[in-house]
């Protein structure tokens, strides 16, 4: 330690928890960012039966793809908000100067982002699946896969969101950066959902999704912290 500190420093986990609590409080004070991706997801999935065919067998066959593409795009839409407000009002600057590890704080922010977008999406997915003729028995499987997939996407997306902070219209750039990395999530996610709908064991693609979550959880916050530092200059 360089300096003698007046009191003991807040431990990093507690600091990350504070960030999560603050972000949740902010989101509930101003729920528009919470509702937007969810409304997008509902609209897209609700339009498919109208545009393809109301026949159950056809809908059920395309349901995994429809649910996953819509969830992926909704989550991408939400990623644009991840750091933007905090970059504009100087919060990220203060994060970097708080004496806390920026990696932990961004981990907290990304976790809060998942709680606010990924979790509502995963609750909504089986409901929208039901309108596509998916049996109720597949609900738990769909919920789990969407929850896991959106978690991985939040982490991977945090790198893109941090990298595009300096760009004036970062939204499109963010999608271009993130989509290639999101393809494996889409493949394994929709495969697991398909198996769940058919009533078969979906553990294998879920495990691969889990592996992506672990990988992104360990690496993404470090990369995002480095990218945020660059954007502060």
């Amino acid at each position, binding site marked *: 330690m360089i300096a003698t500190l007046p009191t003991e420093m807040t431990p990093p986990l507690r*600091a990350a928890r504070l960030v999560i609590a*603050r972000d949740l409080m*902010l989101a509930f004070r101003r729920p528009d960012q919470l509702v937007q991706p969810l409304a997008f997801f509902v609209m897209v999935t609700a339009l498919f039966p109208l545009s393809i065919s109301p026949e159950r067998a056809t809908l059920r066959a395309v349901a995994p793809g429809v649910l996953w593409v819509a969830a992926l795009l909704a989550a991408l839409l939400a990623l644009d908000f991840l750091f933007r407000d905090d970059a504009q009002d100087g919060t990220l600057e203060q994060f970097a*100067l708080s004496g806390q590890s920026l990696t932990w704080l961004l981990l907290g922010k990304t976790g809060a982002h998942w709680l606010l977008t990924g979790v509502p999406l995963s609750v909504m997915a089986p409901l929208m699946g039901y309108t596509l003729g998916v049996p109720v028995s597949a609900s738990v499987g769909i919920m789990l896969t969407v929850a896991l997939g959106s978690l991985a996407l939040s982490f991977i997306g945090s790198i893109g969101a941090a990298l595009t902070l300096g760009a004036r219209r970062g939204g499109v750039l963010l999608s271009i950066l993130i989509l290639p990395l999101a393809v494996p999530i889409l493949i394994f996610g929709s495969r697991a959902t398909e198996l769940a709908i058919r009533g078969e064991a979906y553990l294998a693609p879920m495990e691969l999704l889990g592996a992506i979550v672990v990988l992104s959880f360990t690496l993404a916050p470090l990369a995002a912290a480095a990218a945020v530092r660059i954007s502060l200059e």
Partner: protein
Amino acid sequence: MIGSVLRAENLHLWRTERHVLKGVDLRVCGGELLQLTGVNGAGKTTLLRALCGLNHLEEGRVFWNEHDVCEDLEGFHASLVYLGHEPPLKPDLSGIENLGFWTGMRRRISRAAINDALIRTGGGEFATRPVRTLSAGQKRRVALAGLLLAAVPLWLLDEPTTNLDSSGQELVAMLLEAHLDAGGLAIAAVHHGLGIAASRLRELNLSA
């Protein structure tokens, strides 16, 4: 915090094609205030940001208590507060909630301590209102309370009296005096003097 020293030598920084900091040397000891002066664009804010590591220096080193800050940047950050142009307060949270969050990042803090600090900076009346409803000067008073709550030896202030009325400017001088009395040190970018006794004041003119 007695005897803290911030020293910087030969700081060089380029902003694209412009050489903003041209070999800046400075030294501030506990109990002293360094006033950064200079015309607009002279690099006052840049120097403050470079000292705390937000802007990347091309050349030069910064020492905190004679240790290079690069060795333990987080430890150095734990002993400083940087207050920029815009106080980093969330518009949808109240002043107390904002302060609770920022101070909680550093150490455990009680609600009573937050209230005390707000009363000292004259923010007690409006601290429960959402920050979005406050005037610029009121926000600044809330941010000043955060400065007190951080309880750190080094203050880096960018135009600390912006938007404040005359009683607010006296308040800044009073808080600074108390901070220096306790052995703290401060660097402030200013256009007008802050009203601190000349004996503990140093000045660095970046236009010169």
